């Protein structure tokens, strides 16, 4: 599964994107955030306040309970500030 990061989430984690294999018990968005937080210092810093982190599954906005089982690309980013 491909993970992509944007803005300060990208900066704190330190990479733009990565391909990972998830454990079987990580099946939805909030489980993914909890699991990622433990992957190291950068992840912990990026996901410290995980309630502000926005997630998109295959380029559509997703909610905490949404399934990620069939996702190809999951994006993590801060609240948007375009326009």
């Amino acid at each position, binding site marked *: 599964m491909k993970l992509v990061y944007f803005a300060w989430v990208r900066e704190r984690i330190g990479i733009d994107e990565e391909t990972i294999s998830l454990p079987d018990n990580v099946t939805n968005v909030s489980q993914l955030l909890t699991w990622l937080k433990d992957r190291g210092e950068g992840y912990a810093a990026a996901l410290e306040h995980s309630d502000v982190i926005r997630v998109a599954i295959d*380029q559509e906005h997703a909610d905490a309970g949404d399934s990620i089982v069939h996702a190809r690309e999951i994006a993590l980013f801060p609240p948007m*500030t375009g*326009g």
Partner: protein
Amino acid sequence: MVKAANISVRVQREDFDVAVEQKRITNGRRDIGAVVSFVGLCRDEQGTLAALELEHYPGMAQSELQRIGQNCTRRWPIQELSIVHRFGKFVPGDNIVLVIAASPHRQAAFDAASFVMDFLKTNAPFWKRQHLTNGENGSWVSAKIEDDQAADRW
């Protein structure tokens, strides 16, 4: 009856020309009564901002703007809707975003353009960071609660 809206969405580094975009919409038509255009610019009131950098999520930026456009044209009798959002580096005075809505009726055109801007602010995957004239670089702009409230009113 208003025919199905044409929605045009572009995400690009290059500047846009409001006049060209507007002409593309109205040229040769007799059925448009109102055209509302919104231009959002890089702004610096206090002389503290040197530049803005806009990062975006390629692919999703385009498709999210398209979704916002579809939600808009389902709701109001819109004939033409254009959305152009730039990314890259901006100095104060530069164009960032353009929304044009054409309708037989003025209120629909106003509401449509305003609706698109409100959801674009909260839902389109773009992020701004600012470079200040005092040399302080790279702080990310925080999302505004008022922007969420503006989108909630629709």
